[in-house]
């Protein structure tokens, strides 16, 4: 980990009607840092993650990635920003049911101009890293929960992101499989130097992180 800031959010707020879900949160992530965002269900963790990853526009405040402000960017610019800089891992995997494992991994590259062979080569490489080389042509319905999440992690890595946003990545998995997924994330952080911002409500999982941020009622409390 180096100390250069890769992502920062300044005084971020998000309001839905009368309800303020995130209240003036400031946060920064250094390159290669592993941060866990913990708190009770409904405290605003996922919303903060959406604001920082460009999935959602903040009501107030600014988000900077690599020193560039992305707060006022258009939907399409944000999509391109996510394609080039960000990886996502979701609790329920969110794989496309009609595509094979390698095609799901290559999904972010479909709109990118490159040959099919190159896409497949990169996806294969990542699936092999996830020890899923033998499941390349299987569709999600034929994969176990742990395998699905490993495919999702490979998908998050296909664009060589600067930061991965993981929203409860072990939430739908049993504890053994969850531990295996956490091992992969830790390896990515320590060996590949990828920054990770992970949302979880399991305090045990958060112990492996470089830094822990606690949220309560939309505010960072520690």
């Amino acid at each position, binding site marked *: 980990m180096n100390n250069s800031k890769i992502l920062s959010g300044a005084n971020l707020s998000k309001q839905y009607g009368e309800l303020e879900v995130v209240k003036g949160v400031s946060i920064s992530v250094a390159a290669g840092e592993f941060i866990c965002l913990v708190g009770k269900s409904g405290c605003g963790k*996922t*919303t903060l993650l*959406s604001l920082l990853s460009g*999935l*959602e526009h903040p009501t107030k405040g600014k988000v900077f990635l690599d020193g560039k402000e992305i707060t006022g960017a258009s*939907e*399409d610019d944000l*999509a*391109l920003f*996510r*394609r*080039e800089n*960000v990886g*996502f891992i*979701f*609790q*329920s995997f*969110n794989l*496309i*049911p*009609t*595509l094979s494992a390698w*095609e799901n991994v290559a*999904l*972010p590259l*479909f*709109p990118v101009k490159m040959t*099919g062979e190159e896409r497949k080569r990169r996806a294969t490489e990542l699936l092999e890293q996830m020890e899923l080389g033998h499941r390349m042509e299987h*569709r999600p319905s034929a994969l176990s929960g742990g395998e699905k999440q490993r495919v999702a992690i490979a*998908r998050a890595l296909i*664009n060589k992101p600067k930061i991965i946003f993981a*929203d*409860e990545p072990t*939430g739908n998995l049993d504890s053994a499989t969850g531990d295996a997924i956490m091992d992969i994330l830790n390896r990515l952080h320590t060996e590949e130097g990828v920054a990770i911002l992970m949302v979880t409500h399991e305090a045990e999982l958060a112990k492996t992180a470089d830094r822990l941020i606690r949220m309560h009622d939309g505010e960072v409390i520690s």
Partner: protein
Amino acid sequence: MNAGYLIRELYYQKRRTLTAILGLSIGIALLVILNALSLAYRQAAHAPLKEIGADITVQRPGDVPKELAGAVFPCSAVTIRKEEVEKIRSLPGIKGMGKAVLLWVFDSKQAWIVLGIEQSNTIGPAILRSAVAEGKFLEEGKSEALLEAAYARQFGIRVGDTVSVNGSPFPVVGLLDASRAAKIAVANLYLSLADAEGLAASSPNLQSVSPFAPGDVNLLFIKADQEKITDLAASLKGILGKKATVATPDSFLKLLGSLFALSDKFTLAASLIAIIVAILIAFKTMAGNIAERAREIGVLKAVGWTNRNVVVQLLSEAVIQCFLAGLLGLLIALVVTFGLSFMKVNIPIPWDMAPNPHFLPGGGDQLYKTLRLPVHIPWTLASFAVLLSIVIGGLTGGLLGRHVAKIKPSEVLRHE
């Protein structure tokens, strides 16, 4: 657009794909069948005239002499003067013309229906050359006769015999098979136009009610520009009087009485309904499909697909589905029209175009031209149907794609 993604989406989501394709294909099939049927009725209506190589027949009704003796004109076809013929010939839209003289000749022993024809003119009754069953057809410049075969059998007349018509002898050179002949402009004795004109001109009985001079006729067969037939029909009535009988494909169409035949407006309205139904089915099915995929679209956008990427993908899926629906619709229409092509239609021949004297036994019977409904799908209609399917796909895919591309990934991915 990613072709692999598109193919897998259509292949693995069979229920969605088949519902969309089947729904739209029924609308497209309906559109093609309706138009093919309408076209078939139009072609069927043209058949009685086409058989004599014409688009329009013209005759003028008049009086019959009190005494039916010698050569007379039927009351449905009296003299059309030479000057009137020339005036008609110069009308815009006329591509060619055939002339004939139809006579009833009452001799002491038998009655003849005589038709004087231009032997070499392909417009008019001379087209019946192909119906000669025995002997030969009438030769130009010769005074000879051709007999209808059944009539000849009834009276024991053979090729090589000589028949006497109103006192004039004519050698019989051939027999004509009436079953292969047309239903209009038929007779039991065919002569050259000049001979028939001679019979008419020399008949005092005929001259007393309908003055006739050489060069005059009482039947005209006109080949015309298809687009000008309606205008021509009006002009012909202008020259020959409002009572003139001007038969056109449209006048036969009216006699058919089918909804498909009766009105262009019906076909147009039914086609429009079919198109609207097709569009609604496509739109509803695809809207349902896309709503089911909101989460998937949220994922695409989260991982970096722009609105345009999403729209192009959905548009391509819609276009391919609708294209396949167009092909299936066409296939359904082909099967249905093949079945319909075995249907027979009876086209009534108006009494005033039937040559038989109505007062003779069987003369008053309604004549019909019976034929198989010539249902087929012209390539222009087929191409239009497929093109329309693609356009429907483009419109629905584009509209729905634009709508769905506005989905915010955070909204659809939030509720895990």
